[in-house]
């Protein structure tokens, strides 16, 4: 490594070139979530604390199921991208950072898949 010039060592160490796309995707999901959040609170909120039969019947209806499904999918997608920015900012060790990003993807898509599965099962 001592034989490399400073320029050679600096090459390729710039931006990842995907920052603009990341930001744009965050904006798209943000706009969606501004609309989804109130709808979700209004349709999902009252069900907490209801008995089993009422809850089953509620999520078998199209609108509550669709809104809840969109909230879970878009929300977890937004979370994955947003929390990756947190990891990028605060985790400096390269290996730890990569492991954190992989774990984050597993968590986000895991929660998303579980939510969609539950909603499909409730709806059918």
């Amino acid at each position: 490594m001592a034989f490399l010039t400073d320029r050679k060592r600096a090459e390729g160490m710039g931006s990842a070139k995907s920052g603009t796309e990341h930001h744009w995707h965050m904006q798209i999901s943000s706009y969606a979530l501004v609309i989804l959040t109130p709808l979700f609170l209004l349709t999902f909120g009252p069900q907490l604390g209801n008995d089993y039969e009422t809850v089953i019947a509620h999520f078998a209806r199209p609108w509550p199921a669709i809104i809840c499904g969109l909230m879970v999918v878009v929300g977890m997608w937004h979370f994955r991208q947003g929390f990756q920015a947190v990891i990028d900012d605060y985790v400096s060790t390269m290996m730890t950072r990569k492991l954190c990003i992989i774990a984050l993807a597993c968590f986000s898509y895991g929660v998303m898949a579980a939510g969609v599965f539950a909603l499909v099962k409730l709806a059918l």
Partner: protein
Amino acid sequence: MADMNRDRPLSPFMIGPYYRPQMTSMTSIINRITGSGLAVGALLVVWWLVAAASGPDYFASIDWLITSFIGDLVMFLSVWALWWHTLGGIRHLIWDAGYCLDVETSEKLGYCIIGGSILLTLLTVIIV
């Protein structure tokens, strides 16, 4: 190529030792904290949905958890975090569109986030 994988420098964490906490920086960092914290609320909600899909017995146990004092507290804080993050996010969208970037307006919007999130949380608890 091995050089590419070495640890990269972090940008310094400015608030505290170098920067006095300001209204704009605090409301911004709380946006990040609420967004991260909402993972807990999301996990509980999805767990509850999975339980409802699994049958009445499992549902009863999770429903008990989510409507217990701790569950209520987590849900209440999640609702507040959700509203804060929504309002804070809207401020970011306004900034991204190129408006309200001066300090005075940003601080005004900050107060709107603080007041609005509390107001909307109380409204949500009352109505929903």
